[in-house]
């Protein structure tokens, strides 16, 4: 064989060896690729389960109402084990230890990313039926709307991310709050259309049409779209075969936060009950119910059962929230994290009626008060006091829940007045918004910091 022949063999061999793309194909196991995940209803539902799992993570069962409770006039630091991490939230400073809000901001967007992936994934799926696409997409839009509702209320203007391509999403700046609300409203209106009436699980741990309506009703208070707030809350209240007000009773099984409660519109499933950060409520010493001037501790009428059902003495230092009572996994008793419940819908309808000048404002408030055993406002209650009565009732009924107090104070323009009394010397007007985590600004220089934290 001559040299030339060798050369030919060598070169042919080299080309053959490196030309076979099939040899490099890999088939992953226990992993679905983007497309495969939305190929069947079962897999797409699994991703949806993953979405709820993520939703139930940090923003809610974690720090969610803890941070807002500290920011508002609801909670205060407890004993020495109060983590320095939370100090800056309580004192409205951007200190060096901000890791708790890093994960807070990040937790919202990580979950939003999953919603975006699902909405895009099912839309592009060639195999799912339209009915399935509609339902799954509706659930994902509800979740996305819920998350933006929290983001816009904690941070003000925030980036609106509705797609998954990082080359686009990494450079999105903060968008005006009204655009964020427009996005939320759009998602919820679509979800109301796309979602079925019935719950997919008996425990109301996945959203149905009424959950979307209930959230839209709440969001409409913030956008001052009173008609929508009225329509949506009325529709939910009218669905009496699904929802009814529970009873306030010391017996835990009758607790309105029990997983079987018919007052619940949507709740997040959890394994071991509702924890606050890493503390379960039963062993709570790091935080306590704020006891300063105007404390909720003095807010209840003597006959109001909520005083004992929602708040309890702490073994260590004053009082602790007592809505959730489960300390450990107890198979005989289950408690999940309630996101939407009927009592709030009455208060929303009351507010919408008030703003639209319709009758029945005190009737709706008294539904909530009657259940608590508190004196009724009755028809003679002066209309001039409606606004204050509503803010007060929201506080008494929805304390420690879903940042309601913090958001209501800001929404109704009372934050400055209330907080400068509750925390004189500490409060400042810029504290109504949280600081954008510095790491986020580092990684996306288009983000600008909120006032008061530069």
């Amino acid at each position, binding site marked *: 064989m001559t040299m030339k022949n060798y050369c030919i063999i060598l070169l042919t061999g080299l080309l053959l060896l490196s030309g076979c793309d099939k040899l490099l194909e890999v088939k992953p196991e226990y*992993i679905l690729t983007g497309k495969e995940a939305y190929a069947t209803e079962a897999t797409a539902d699994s991703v949806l389960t993953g979405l709820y799992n993520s939703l139930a993570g940090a923003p809610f069962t974690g720090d969610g109402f803890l941070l807002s409770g500290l920011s508002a006039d609801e909670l205060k630091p407890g004993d020495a084990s109060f983590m320095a991490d939370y100090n800056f939230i309580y004192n409205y400073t951007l200190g060096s230890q901000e890791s708790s809000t890093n994960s807070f901001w990040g937790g919202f967007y990580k979950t939003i990313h999953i919603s975006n992936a699902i909405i895009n994934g099912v839309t592009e799926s060639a195999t799912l039926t339209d009915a399935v696409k509609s339902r799954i997409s509706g659930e994902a839009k509800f979740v996305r709307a819920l998350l933006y509702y929290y983001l816009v209320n904690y941070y003000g203007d925030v980036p609106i*991310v509705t797609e998954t391509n990082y080359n686009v999403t990494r450079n999105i700046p903060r968008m005006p709050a009204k655009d964020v609300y427009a996005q939320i409203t759009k998602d919820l209106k679509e979800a109301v259309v796309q979602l079925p009436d019935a719950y997919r699980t008996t425990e109301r741990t996945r959203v149905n049409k009424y959950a979307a309506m209930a959230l839209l009703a709440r969001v409409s208070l913030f956008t001052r779209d009173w008609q929508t707030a009225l329509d949506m809350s009325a529709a939910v209240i009218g669905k009496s075969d699904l929802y009814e007000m529970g009873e306030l009773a010391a017996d835990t099984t009758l607790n309105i936060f029990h997983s079987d409660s018919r007052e619940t519109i949507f709740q997040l499933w959890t394994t071991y009950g509702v924890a606050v950060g890493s503390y379960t409520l039963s062993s709570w010493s790091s935080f306590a119910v704020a006891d300063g001037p105007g404390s909720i501790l003095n807010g209840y009428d003597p006959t109001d059962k909520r005083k004992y059902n929602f708040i309890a003495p702490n073994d260590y230092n004053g009082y602790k929230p007592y809505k959730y009572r489960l300390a450990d996994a107890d198979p005989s008793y289950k408690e999940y994290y309630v996101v939407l419940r009927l009592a709030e819908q009455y208060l929303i309808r009351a507010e919408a009626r008030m703003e639209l000048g319709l009758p029945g404002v005190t009737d709706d408030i008294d539904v909530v008060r009657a259940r608590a055993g508190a004196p009724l406002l009755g028809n003679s209650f002066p209309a001039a006091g409606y606004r204050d009565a509503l803010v007060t009732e929201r506080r008494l009924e929805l304390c420690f829940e879903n940042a309601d107090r913090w958001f209501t104070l800001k929404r109704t323009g009372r934050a400055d007045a209330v907080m400068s009394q509750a925390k004189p010397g500490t409060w400042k007007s810029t504290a109504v918004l949280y600081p954008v985590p510095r790491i986020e600004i580092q990684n996306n220089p288009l983000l600008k910091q909120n006032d008061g934290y530069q």
Partner: protein
Amino acid sequence: MLKTKLNLMYQKNTSYRSAVFLRLVHLFILLAVVPAVVNAQRMNFNARHVTIKQLLEELRRQNNSEIVVSSDLIRSTHEIDVDVKNATTEEVLQRFLSRFNLAYKVDGKTIIITARESNPVPPSPVDTSKPLKGAVSSLAGKLESVTVINRRTGEVAITAANGIFILHDAADADTVQLTMLGYEKLLVKAADIRKNGQVMMTTAANGLDVVSVLAYGQHVSRRTNTGSSVKVTAEEIEKTATANPILALQGRVAGMNVNITSGLPGAHPKVQIRGVNTLNMDGRAQNPLYIVDGVPFPANSLAVVSNNGTTYSGAYDSPLKSIDPSSIATIEVLKDADATAIYGARGANGVILITTKKGKPGPLALDVDVYTSSARIAKKINMMNTAEYLQMRREAAANDGITPTAAAYPDLFKWSQTAYTDWQQAYLNRSAHTTNAEVNVSGGTSKTRYLVGAGFRKEMTIYDLKNGLMLGNGRANISHQSANNKFRVSGIANFSTDKNDVAAINPSEIITLPPNYSPYNEDGTLNWDKSNPLATTLKTTKNKSRNIQLSVSPEYWFTEDLKGKVMMGYSDTRLDQTYISPIASQNPNNSPKGQATFVNGSVRSYTVEPQLDYHHTWKKHGLTALLGGTYIVNKSATSSNFAFGFPADSLMGDIKNAAAIDSNKTAAMYKFLSGFTRLGYNYNNTYIVNLTFRRDGSSRFAPANRYGNFWSVGAAWVLSEEKWVRNHLPLFNLLKLRGSYGITGNDNIGDYKYFVNYLKTYGQYETYGLSPTNLFNDTYRWEENKKADVALETTMFSNRLSVDVNYYVNKSGNQLVEYPLGTQTGFGSVVMNLGAVVQNSGWEFTVSGTPLKDKKLLWNSRLNISLQRNKLLSFPGLANSSYNTIYAIGRPLSLYWGFEFLGIDPATGAPVVRDQNRDGAISYPADYSPLMTSLPACYGGLGNTFNYGNISLDVFFSFKINRYGPPISMPTGGDITNMPVYFLQRWKAKGDETEIPAYTTSSSKLYGYNSSGAIIKDASYIRLSSLSLSYNFSANVLKRLHIRSLRLYATGNNLFTITRYPGLDPEAGMYMPPLRSFSFGLRTQI
């Protein structure tokens, strides 16, 4: 005269012709086999300017004669004109050989060419034609394949496996010459051999012609190598008596930094060859490639359960522990672009080739190596005594204005105030025993060779007297070649299985126990006044691993110049872990529930490597060409079951009794395909150039970016071959300049990242769901490493001294990293190529020599020093990335960050650190700055071997200079934890000048101290790594015992360390340090 000189082509020519003579590769050239009768055929040859080499080749080609000749003899460039017609071989030889000053001899079918003696000694009249029998040995044992030549007659004999040779005709006065690659040439009087029956050869002072194994089994000598590689031989490994072959390399290879992270049995040493190239902080991405007998060896731990014994503190279980060091023939460390290019992407962090011992032709031999060793902890930390400890506790409370209570301070109230236990004496002062045995049976014929062996090791640790590492391994290899020698096949099987049950106790948990503590209550139950380290012994830790490696390599010689070969390899590594934490082992105050973890991990790897190997020589030109391909399929899988909430310990045997079970399965597949070619050109052994080109494909990239093209150039100029050097600088036996440059790729980023992975969620939402785990980016591609290497290699003073100086610069860019992004994208990062550039540069000096050599005493010395600099050259957007407290431009990658420590405030006893941004507050990360690096600026080893008669003494020091850490923080006085005595120097009262803060119960008061440079100590060291004394029994004794060799040895490891580091060990910190061990063993061949 017959001093070996190697020619790459020739040596390669020979490696395949005949297995019998494979070992002669270095010395002889066998030009064809199977001659029926010499002279049987007649030849024609008409040519001008014929060198002896060409003449012999022609002879061999036309006549199929087997010709044995020293490569030295045919290096002559003398040329003659030849014109023969129809001549016999013998006629040709008679006519022309004398013109080259050569003689020949026909021995049966073989023609042996020798140098013509100018003054032939006349045969002694008394004892002509007397056969001479002798045995050749070295300190290591019997020497096989030594060439023995009677200088008078030119008769050549080769020693068999037992070292025996027979010369048929030798007079007493004859001079017998013995040569062997890697050994000093020896001239002995035949009479002396008759008298002693034995000849002793000594290792060459230099490794000039020591054959190195290169990629894919190519061989090359130091003389013609263009790449940078270091070889460590069995002889050197044997002197260390370590359990893990990689540990034996510490300090022995310039440019290779071996870090012992733990002294626990089976722990994995961290290896960096020429620094860290990648920003990827996963240690696995920094690992070199390990190849055992041609098959890639998965050196990454499969451990999933991190709190298991061997995996404690990141000291992962090492799959490499399964390779018994005494079964290793050589370890080759390939460093530069030229040496590693052929492995492409996989070799970006360097390549470690491990070759196990193979069978040799000869009668059946039984090799036994047995040793036992006893090890103890080498250092004791001086801790406070009871009075000092109690004072510390009181003072800390008093400083913080706290009044101690019985609940928080049981040691001040409940416990004895006078009891004293030296915990190190009580629990860490025991001996850990190791028994190691290795048996090999080997032998073979010229066509078939085999080796079957088995080994066993039991290695215990000092604190866990029940449990240890038990390891068994077996191996078999066989090679066979066809009658016409054209087809050859070899098969290798290695198997090992081990069980490591060492309890996961961190020695510092024991060391820091208060001196007045009692781990047990009066009723015999565990004392939980503080966390009790002895509780760990009630937990069950089991790591079972299994390792199989198989390979088959058929090869076929199409022509004398062209060989085809396919290596097919399979490796299978498994690790089963069990970790059971019963209620009894947990603090009862925390209402414990039983927990159990069961994990199975496996990696299977299939490798196919076809290759064509061509070489051709004409006149002074040598050409080699290698064309090959690699196809690797790697499958890894883990299956884990975490079972929580067993209500009772007795129910823990069945996982179904758990309240909750979290099961997880992962699997990944990796495929690697590449084609490569290597072209080499050698002009007269003086100018040598090697080019490598390869195209690598990896399944870790999206289809569009799968392939990368990489290349390297290596060149050498052997100045000592030039006439003017030979004439003017005769001092040099070798003077060589060598350099290489090349680009290799790196795909160390993990599998499947280029599409969105939907994986089972960690937590449940009623059931488990699926969740996307990454962002979509299919545009990333190969990381690129550019490596440049220049070296000067010299050998001087008749090979008594050799000095090598090597300089290298490696730059790796296009870094494959998880690039940080704003979380608004859904994730904190995305896999992409980052424009950061990491540079590693350094000098490597290797000196070896024979300072003293006389009849009885031989002193060999070797020293290597590596100066290394690692720095981050650029990193776009570093300040704004999450890497901004990990890396700094211009600084090494392994950086300790922290506050700059300014001292202790004499007024308050509080630590003072620098306020870098001068905002009046000390905060992380604003006031953090890069402090020190853990990478040594200089490291190496110094070895000395003294041979005196049958006794050999080897002393080996290793050192690392200018490195820092691991940090040792100051415990707070609020914890029930004892402290080393140097904390007694704390601030006590106003005005005290000290470097140690006041005692305090508050970790935040110590934050400034414990996050500062004050706790990062200088960890430079010089260590007497091994001291080995051995005795070889003389031939007389061996004859009486009827064995071929017997060596007794005693080795001490880690005998002393000179360091200022206050922890247990400058490398392991406060974790289990490498132990001081003494081994006694014997090695024999029967």
